């Protein structure tokens, strides 16, 4: 086999390793190994390219050493909490690198002849995508790290400006691809960088994770485009894999937030004329069944707090089953029964006895409140008034003074209810707005059954 074939063969191997890597990253048991496998793929690809004949290694070695050092230090030093922004930063570097590779290929093309329309188009794409990725990621980084306000930034004429930029990019791209004019290239670079900024600033800090996922997908596409520029398979394959899987991932992330991708990216974008985004202090945070599953899976103590909604949903059997699963999973499970939960004395007892919940797991309010702050997860199933902290902390509330089950002291609280419905008393429940509370909307039985299914899969 000649050297070229060998290198190409190595690329195939690297690509396969990337495929496995991504696949394995998608499941908890294999994720870490997947990451390692993909890193081996990367190593193979790098070694392979180094075998290319007729290279000057000076710069290469210098570049690798510098880059590795910086990367390693950053990765080691970063606080756990700082990881998301670091990923954003790295991502931006990747995008910029792709941009530069495209540019370099053009620059290396020293003779004055036109680089060809196909390569030209590839260069345009590389620069465009790479540029957006770079500045977009930087903005995301700034927002996440708090170096820039997390609020969505909107201003008048934003929409028009963006359209203008887009049109300009198309025109300039066309010019460059056909003529290879250097000025067009520079202009393109500038506009791409600008577009990245414009795209991300109107998005609120809370949506940044999705944005990073999208930009990650972009940085893959940028690499892929760079691959077209230099006609290199492994770039095309690996870049494209990342591009596609990143897109799917961002869609999944949106789903987990009960949003659509379009809503995240352009939610503020279109409607943005003068109106500034309002950040509600303490909002109701929805969660998906899947989110809850992962928290429950790791929980060591779980307290269920049933209310009238459990009766309406007839969720008692499902709840019993979930409790059983959690126990088998090593968690301590209690049912905290508030004396007035439901609509008749002993309402919850009737239901839980029907579902054959062991008596030992039924706890009275007074027994469970003292240990509530040691509880990992409290699951409020269609209860409302009986867990309303207003009874404790809002003297103006009509229920002030009523004893409640203090779920808000638990580490995490999931509240299962269908929507914004109030309880018997008709009061607003400030529990729902607490930092550690997540709302899982939907019929309680459906939700619980969903959780059970998660555990079974």
């Amino acid at each position, binding site marked *: 086999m000649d050297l070229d074939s060998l290198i190409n063969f190595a690329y195939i191997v690297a690509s396969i390793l990337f495929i496995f890597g991504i696949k394995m990253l998608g499941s908890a048991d294999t994720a870490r190994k997947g990451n390692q496998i993909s890193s081996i793929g990367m190593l193979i690809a790098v070694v392979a390219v180094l075998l290319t004949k007729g290279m000057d290694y000076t710069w290469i070695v210098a570049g690798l050493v510098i880059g590795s050092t910086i990367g390693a230090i950053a990765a080691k030093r970063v606080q756990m909490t700082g990881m998301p922004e670091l990923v954003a930063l790295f991502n931006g570097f990747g995008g910029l690198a792709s941009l530069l590779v495209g540019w370099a290929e053009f620059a290396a093309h020293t003779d004055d002849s036109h680089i060809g329309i196909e390569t030209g188009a590839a260069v345009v794409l590389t620069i465009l995508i790479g540029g957006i990725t770079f500045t977009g990621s930087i903005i995301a980084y700034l927002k996440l790290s708090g170096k820039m306000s997390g609020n969505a930034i909107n201003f008048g004429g934003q929409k028009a400006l963006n359209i203008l930029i887009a049109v300009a990019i198309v025109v300039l791209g066309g010019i460059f691809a056909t003529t290879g004019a250097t000025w067009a290239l520079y202009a393109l670079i500038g506009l791409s960088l600008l577009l990245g900024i414009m795209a991300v600033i109107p998005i609120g800090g809370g949506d940044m994770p999705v944005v990073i996922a999208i930009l990650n997908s972009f940085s893959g596409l940028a690499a892929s485009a760079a691959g077209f520029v230099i006609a290199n398979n492994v770039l095309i394959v690996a870049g494209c894999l990342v591009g596609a899987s990143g897109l799917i991932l961002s869609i999944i992330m949106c789903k987990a937030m009960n949003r659509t991708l379009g809503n995240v990216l352009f939610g503020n974008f279109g409607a943005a004329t003068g109106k500034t985004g309002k950040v509600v202090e303490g909002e109701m945070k929805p969660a998906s069944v899947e989110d809850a599953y992962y928290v429950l899976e790791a929980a060591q103590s779980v307290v269920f707090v049933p209310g*009238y909604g459990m*009766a*309406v949903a*007839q969720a008692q059997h499902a709840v019993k089953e979930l409790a059983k699963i959690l126990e088998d999973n090593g968690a301590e499970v209690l049912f905290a029964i508030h*004396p*007035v939960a439901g*609509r*008749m*004395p*002993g*309402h919850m007892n*009737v239901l839980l006895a*029907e579902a054959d919940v062991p008596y030992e797991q039924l706890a009275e309010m007074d027994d469970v409140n003292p240990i509530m702050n040691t509880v990992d997860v409290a699951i409020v199933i269609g209860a409302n*008034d009986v867990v309303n902290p207003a009874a404790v902390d809002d003297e103006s509330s*009509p*229920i*002030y*003074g*009523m004893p409640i089950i203090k779920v808000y002291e638990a580490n995490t609280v999931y509240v299962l209810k269908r929507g914004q419905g109030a309880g*018997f*008393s008709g009061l607003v429940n400030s529990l729902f707005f607490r930092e550690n509370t997540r709302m899982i909307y939907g019929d309680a039985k459906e939700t619980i059954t969903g959780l059970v299914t998660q555990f079974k899969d």
Partner: protein
Amino acid sequence: MKIFAPKETDPDETRAALDPLGAKKLTDLGITVVVEAGVGESSGHLDQKYSEAGAEVTQDRNAALADADVVIRVRKPPAAEVGKLKKGAIHISFLDPFNEPDLIDAFAKANATAISLEMVPRTTLAQKMDALSSQANLAGYASVILAASRMKTILPMMMTPAGTIAPAKFFIVGIGVAGLQAIATAKRLGARVTAFDVRPEALEQAESLGAKALRIDLGETKSEGGYAKEMTPEQIKIQIEAQAKVCAQSDVVITTAKVFGRKPPVLVKKPAIDQMQNGSLIIDLAAEGGGNVEGIVAGEEVTTKNGVTLIGLTNYEGLVPQNATQVYSANITNMIEHFLDEESKSFPIDLEDEILKGCVITYDGKIVNERFTS
């Protein structure tokens, strides 16, 4: 502060106002507790248990009445005993104030503070003192057990080698606290339960317990403060007719429909009863106030010509006296604990308080409750 729990005077009353647990709770609060000897006899509590809980057991009822700061009992007192109270003493019990104007006047005259437990407002906050609920709940349970023990058939369905035994059919009219518990108990035993109430939200609650809700279009039937409004005669007529069919198919009809402060409506009339099967039962939980059933006699049992037995006990919760005493006693001790002034160990009457405003009838020689001052 000295609290006295006399023995109930009504010979049919099996409950007591205080159980040993309650006595213990009060003495722990620093209150002197006195009970009349034999107070817990019929509810399963020996005098000795009260002593052990720190209460003083006395034989001298009159002395204790005259000496106590707070007198607690289940039923309204005999008129004669009101005068024996200390001036300014507090008397807590069911009073049936809408039907007992004379008794109220006697309290005012005696300068005693009469607290009527029926009048505790049905707010979420006051639920721990809500004796109407705590007793109605047990009454609902007891009514179904009574039915089951009186029926010639079993409640659940059984498909056996010797044929299928059909499930008993229950019809519950009035889905308040008692009605709900009756539904729950009958359902538990495997009966088929149909239920009706004028409050639409109550129908949803019945369904949450597995009953079939009978839906009758009666037009406007709003409720206020947890109680049903009185209905118009036309509405009652529509209701009676729609219910008759269900009654005819039912083995047991349990009625619990009360309207706060008024005579309960008569909802099951003779034509409906005549259509019922030989051996069927009708149990009326509103019998004391006049009953929801035509022909019911409070405190008695009547069998019609076509073999339907009408039961009109006045005290279903008394069938499970130990638990009934337990929760009644808890209601009263909760109330005392709630209002107790820790310092002075007294029960100050603050008529601005939401709860006291509702349930204090007389104070300082006057009738103070809005509902009775007109």
